[in-house]
Every structure is written in structure tokens, then in C-alpha cells.
């Protein structure tokens, strides 16, 4: 990976970095209490005290967006650890060893692919019930097959390359070949898949929360904020535009990052 001249990567890292700081900050700090209502500030326009204005209950939109992006980060990171981690492990093993587990995984993949996008996550939510941790569980399970497939296809390409053959000749164990030799060589693809996975998790969480079956109050969520604020788009445009804008910048940053990694 050449970092210089790779404008997608530079721009992606900068934007994703800024959004990452924003999200991490939201996990620990908000300038105002996101739930504190103040009738005097109802639909207050943007000001220095309230940079994004206030919503229909007089709550500070900036604090709510900050907390909401914290929740989003928590959900997306949890999803990636669960789905990306398990998926990558499955892909590594099935790709390298092949045989019936590989065949089984691929058939299962085909099956899961029949449930488009967020639909399978909705099945899990309808069984588990809504809530932050159930969203992570549902999205994580849904993401496993796609990660497994991406990693598997890369492992299959790499396992017959000369550097793996020579490692085998030198007497490396299977685990060492997989994790020390093959894994570092497919990291570009893996990072790119993780960045895309992050985006999909952010968008799915926002969509599910928008529908009211994702993250539940008191956890703040930008999807939920948007569905509540939608009716007041003219009286308080800030409470609709800013959560939307923050989601767009997040997804844009990680999208560029993914494109930059994938060269």
C-alpha cells in the first residue's frame, strides 16, 4: 500500500479519524444532559451555547447527536468484533483446509444470501426483542457469512503461492502459516471489508432504530432522533439535518478508507 498519492486513503483516514474522535467522545461526554428538557429552548436555533440548536422538547441537539454517535459506534464496533472476528476465523480455516466444512459453509452462505440486507437482522430482532445488545447480536450473526466468504476467497488464492509453499517446506505449522504468513498478506482486503462492514452496521443500526425496532430509549440513537424530528423539519431543521449529516460523514469517511485500502 502506497500511502502517498493515495488520496482516498488520506482523505478517508482524516475524515474517519475526526468522526472516530467524535464518536468516542460521545461515549463518555456530552456538554448538556441529552435528556434534559427545557420548554424555554423549544426549537431554539443554532447558537454558541447550542451549536446544533434544540429540538421539540428543548433538548440540546448537539449533545444528543454526540451521545447517539457514541451508541452507533458501540453497536458498529460490537458488530464488527462479533461478525468480522468470527467470520474472518471461519474464512481462514475453511479456505485453508477445504473439505466438507468448506462446502457446508458455502451452502449456508447461499442460503443466508436469500434474505436481503437488514431483513435477516429483523428476523433476529423479532425473536430476541429490540435493544442495543440484541441489535449487535443480530447484525453480528448476519455479517458472519459475508466476512467468511471474503476471507476464504483470499486464503484460497494465497495458499498455493510460493511464499506459503516455502514456509511449509521450512516446517512451519498450519497455525503459523495461517496467522503469521497468510493473514498479514490479506490485511488490505480485510481492512477494506471491515471498513465496509462498519458502514453497513452504521446504516443498518440507523435504519432499524428509525423503524423503532433497533436501539431503545434511554439509549440515544440517531435513527430514532431522525424519526422523531422528521415532522418538525421546517420549524427545527437542525434536529433533522445534523444527525443525518453526521451519519453521512461517518459513512463517507469509512467508505473512502475502504477504497483506499483496496488497492
Amino acid at each position, binding site marked *: 500500500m502506497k500511502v502517498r498519492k493515495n488520496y482516498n486513503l488520506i482523505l478517508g483516514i482524516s475524515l474517519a479519524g475526526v468522526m472516530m474522535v467524535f464518536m468516542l467522545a460521545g461515549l463518555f461526554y456530552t456538554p448538556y444532559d441529552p435528556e434534559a428538557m427545557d420548554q424555554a429552548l423549544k426549537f431554539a436555533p443554532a447558537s454558541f451555547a447550542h451549536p446544533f440548536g434544540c429540538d421539540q422538547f428543548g433538548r440540546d441537539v448537539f449533545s444528543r447527536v454526540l451521545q447517539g454517535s457514541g451508541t452507533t459506534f458501540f453497536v458498529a464496533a460490537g458488530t464488527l468484533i462479533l461478525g468480522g472476528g468470527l467470520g474472518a476465523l471461519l474464512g481462514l480455516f475453511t479456505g485453508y483446509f477445504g473439505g466438507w466444512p468448506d462446502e457446508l459453509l458455502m451452502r449456508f452462505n*447461499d*442460503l443466508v*444470501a*436469500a*434474505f*436481503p*440486507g*437488514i*431483513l435477516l437482522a*429483523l*428476523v*433476529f*430482532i*423479532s*425473536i430476541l426483542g429490540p435493544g442495543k445488545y440484541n441489535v449487535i447480536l443480530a447484525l453480528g450473526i448476519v455479517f458472519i457469512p459475508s466476512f467468511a466468504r471474503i476471507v476464504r476467497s483470499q486464503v484460497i488464492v494465497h495458499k498455493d503461492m510460493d511464499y506459503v509453499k516455502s514456509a511449509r517446506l521450512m516446517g512451519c505449522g498450519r497455525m503459523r502459516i495461517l496467522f503469521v504468513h497468510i493473514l498479514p498478506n490479506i490485511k488490505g482486503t480485510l481492512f477494506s471489508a471491515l471498513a465496509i462492514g462498519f*458502514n453497513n452496521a452504521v*446504516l443498518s443500526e*440507523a*435504519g432499524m432504530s*428509525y*423503524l*423503532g*425496532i433497533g436501539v431503545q430509549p434511554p439509549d440515544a440513537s440517531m*435513527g430514532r432522533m*431522525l*424519526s422523531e424530528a*422528521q415532522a418538525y*423539519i*421546517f420549524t427545527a431543521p437542525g434536529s*433533522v439535518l445534523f444527525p*443525518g449529516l453526521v*451519519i*453521512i*460523514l*461517518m*459513512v*463517507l469517511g469509512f*467508505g*473512502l478508507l475502504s*477504497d483506499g485500502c483496496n488497492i
Partner: protein
Amino acid sequence: MKYLTKKFCTLIITLLAVSLLSFLAFQIIPGDAAVSRLGTGATQEKAAKLRREMGLDRPVMERYGSWLKDFVQGDMGESYTYSLPVAGMIKEKLPVTLAIAGMSFFFMLAVSIPLGLLAGRYGGRLPDRILTVCNQIVMAVPGFFMGILLTCVFGLVLHWFTPGGYVSYQESPSGFFGYLVFPAIAIALPKCAMGVKLLRSSVIGELQQDYVRTAYSRGNSPRQVLYGHVLKNSLLPVITFWALAIADIMASSMILEQVFTAPGIGTLLVQSISNRDYPVVQAVIVLIAGLVVVINFLVDLLYGVIDPRINMKGEG
């Protein structure tokens, strides 16, 4: 013919597996369907009686068999919440979702083919760069936020439609399509961006092939080469994406129906999930998954028509 038989068998097996998976998923729900249906008035005897009526005391595979038999014959059970046949509820809402998905698909084709060709032809130059930047931004916008923006711009500012004023097909076909075209556009835009991106790279790759040089040397104009030779070859990888996009469009429709308060399958599904109305959820999910499997099967057949080389290999 052998190819066709093989594909058809795979189709049937996948359909069975999808229905089994969906059926089993709803068997592991914590709590008893009979008790939850009775609500607060549940007693031991009442629950046992209802369990027998609902057939919950039989083994799982036997229940799956009879459920599948009924499902194929069009009997999808009865809604817990409304005590109405599920099939009727779905039949009423399906046209809305299909109209949105259909329009969305055609909009996606109509926008991404010309723009993808344009970006590919001017690869690396100004039109391509502008399109690439637009693509990145459009792809980052969540579908429902795009829906809100469209409602705001076309509904509240330009007054091209009344937000929340859904018109049924029976009342006025033009009003029906005129209203649903906006959710369709909101769904299609991110898919257009993805399609343009794929077609662009495919066209750039094809333009370097030998047959393009041959076509030029025989005196064809750039336009003739692009439309007569390059387009057909560069479409093949993009068709795979479009086929996958059909499934995605159905899923996005679930959300966009909610934004535009259109009474489609998605609205039904979301309501039923909130109400824990499992027969409806199960039927909708099996139906959509089945639809996606059948569409993928048809696309596989279409490949064979577009590129006859695929048929000869025996497997796709």
C-alpha cells in the same frame, strides 16, 4: 437442458431450505405462542387447549410439513393481532411494495447505464471525476434520510406530492404511481451510484481490449465502438450486481415505506414485529426470501442467454 435441470433442482432445494430456516427460527422464540396469544387471561387449561388447537403439541418436523403444505396452497395462517388470514393481508399490501421496487429498479437502470458509460469513456478526466465524487457522497446517505430530504424538497417546498397523502391504485392510478415514485427514487439513488462505479471500471477495462482497437481500425466511430461493442461486454459483471440489487431494493423498501407512510409489506412487517405477530412476520419473510431466490434463478438463466459460453461449462 442438463444445465437447466440442475439449476431447477438447486432452486427447489434452496426454496425448501429457506422455508425450513425461517420456520425453525420462529420455533426457538422464548415463551409459548399459546400463552402469549392468550395474554393476561392465560390459565393452565386454556393454554393447553389452545396449544392443541394450534397444533403446538406435535413434533417440529410434522408441523413444518403441514405448515409448508398450507403455505404452498395459499393458506399462511391467521394473524394473532387482527385474527385475519395472513394471505389476505399480504395480498392487499404486496402491490405497493412491488410498485416501489419495480420503479426503483427501472430508475436504477435508466440512470446508471448512461452515466456509467459516460464516466468510463472519460476515465480519469473531468466528467469521470465529478461523477466519482457524487457517487461517494450519494452512497453515504442512508436511505431513510434520502427519503426525508426528498419529502422536504419535492413535497414541502415544490408541492409535487402531498407527504403522507398516499393514494390507492383504485382511487387513481396516476396518483398511486406519482406518490410511490419518490420512495422508489430514494431507494434507487445509492444503487445508481454503485452501478455507475461498477460499469465505469468495467468499461475502462474493456476499452483496453484488442477487439476495441480492431473495431477502431475498421473505421468505426467512438460512438459505434462504445454502443456496438463495449457496452454489451462490459454489462456482464454489472448484471450480477443488478441481480443482487433487486434483493436490496426489497429490503430498503421496508424502511422507505415507513418514511412515506405507504401501506406496503414493509409497514406490515414492522408493525407485526412490534406486535409480536409471528405468523405475519414468518409469512412475509418466507415470501420475500422466496422471491429473491426465484429472481436469482431467473438471472442465472438470463446469463446463459446473454453469454452462451456459460451454458457449455455445465455450471454457472
